[in-house]
């Protein structure tokens, strides 16, 4: 009886080993066969060095890293602008953003989506990686209704969900950082390595801030964000014309004031975006007007920033 029990255990152990190994063999597939006789040493090396080869692009940054990059990008933006500290308006834009985000392609993000209003007359919005969104009072004034503001916020959420900000980081910087991190086997980095990594971190922040504040995203990224925003507001139940109305207002403003900064210098021409968006909104789509409750709550809060 006892021998039978041991036999059972032995068979189980053998089977477990075989099944696990066979899983790996299946996954490794042809690559393993190619490696031929060298397999054991190669394996040993691969096990210890997996993380070295693993990370190469901005896509390989973890959610936590994206969050920490975003925090500092936010701090750098806040060094250039003053916060408009109006709690009713701030609570409203956060509620609106967090509601809209549920219908985006990335409803959940490391620490959530949050917005601050910047006390500036320039018409501008910026989205730092990790969910930190900034909109100016000037932009709020340009929005005729909640549907327009929802469209603008959906556009900023789209920049974050598509990780456009992280794409601005120079490739060489990332590769250097990943290499540095992969070589260390210990759980925590040695102090001198933290110093090197911090320099790379600083460089990455500058890359992103230059893109967000000075240069702006390229046309392709903006058009992608518009298109994703349109899907988001559609799913949420906002009128797809909201973002179009905002851009039309912007175009009006642009013709009136030729020296506007902000959105105008960092975004493609609003007229071009309107044209593109109009082709995406089904031509048969009804120009539904927002329900009264939505109009009323927007008008009430808008009086605070007018």
């Amino acid at each position: 009886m006892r021998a039978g029990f041991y036999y059972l255990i032995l068979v189980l152990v053998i089977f477990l080993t075989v099944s696990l190994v066979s899983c790996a063999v299946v996954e490794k597939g042809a690559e393993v066969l190619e490696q031929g006789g060298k397999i054991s040493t190669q394996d040993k090396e691969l096990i210890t060095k997996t993380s070295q080869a693993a990370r190469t692009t901005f896509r390989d940054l973890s959610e936590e890293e994206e969050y920490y990059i975003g925090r500092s990008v936010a701090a750098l933006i806040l060094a250039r602008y003053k916060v408009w500290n109006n709690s009713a308006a701030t609570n409203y834009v956060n509620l609106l953003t967090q509601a809209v985000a549920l219908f985006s392609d990335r409803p959940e993000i490391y620490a959530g989506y949050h917005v601050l209003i910047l006390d500036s007359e320039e018409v501008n919005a910026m989205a730092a990686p990790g969910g930190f969104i900034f909109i100016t009072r000037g932009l709020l004034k340009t929005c005729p209704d909640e549907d327009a503001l929802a469209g603008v916020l959906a556009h900023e959420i789209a920049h974050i969900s598509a990780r456009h900000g992280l794409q601005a980081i120079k490739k060489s910087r990332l590769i250097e950082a990943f290499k540095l991190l992969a070589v260390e086997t210990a759980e925590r980095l040695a102090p001198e390595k933290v110093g090197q990594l911090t320099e790379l971190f600083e460089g990455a922040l500058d890359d992103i801030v230059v893109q967000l504040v000075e240069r702006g995203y390229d046309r392709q990224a903006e058009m992608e964000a518009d298109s994703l925003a349109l899907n988001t507001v559609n799913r949420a139940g906002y009128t797809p014309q909201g973002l179009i109305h905002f851009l039309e207002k912007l175009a009006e403003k642009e013709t009136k004031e030729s020296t506007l900064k902000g959105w105008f210098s960092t975004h493609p021409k609003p007229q071009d975006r309107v044209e593109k968006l109009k082709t995406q909104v089904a031509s048969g789509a009804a120009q539904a007007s927002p329900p009264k409750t939505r109009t009323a709550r927007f008008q009430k809060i808008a009086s605070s920033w007018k």
Partner: protein
Amino acid sequence: MERKFLLLSMLLFAVLSLSKTEVVVVKVQTTALRAEPRFFAAVKLMLKTGDQLEKLGGQEGWFQVKAASGATGWVHSSAVEPRPTQLAALTKGPQTKAAMSEVALASKGFNRQVEAKYREKHPELDYAWVDKMLGLQASAEAIRKFLEEGKLGEWKEAK
């Protein structure tokens, strides 16, 4: 003897199916295990970064999972990432996510430690508003009410 053989085969089957379970890992700070695959469903328990969940099924952006405590429910797909087996990490290519999780779990990278060092170098930067900003979180109930009042989401008017 025959019974023993039967028992053995059953055990082997159990082991075989065990080795095939798909595990996902929570990648956001916190997320809810919900009773149904929608955001306003009842919350069964809160999960945090690194929590491992056994994937049972899924539908449109949602995974049905079983938590370590044994509780089952739904998590949104944007809150988790796949976690392949250690051995799978041997291969290059699509398996790189495994290594990423390892790095993330060890918390090596652009993290709190690097931010602290950066702030030491830049005392002029003020993070007070950044921290305040993170506290600007509407409750699930407030968001639900906001959508209902605005005739949005599941409350949107039929066209």
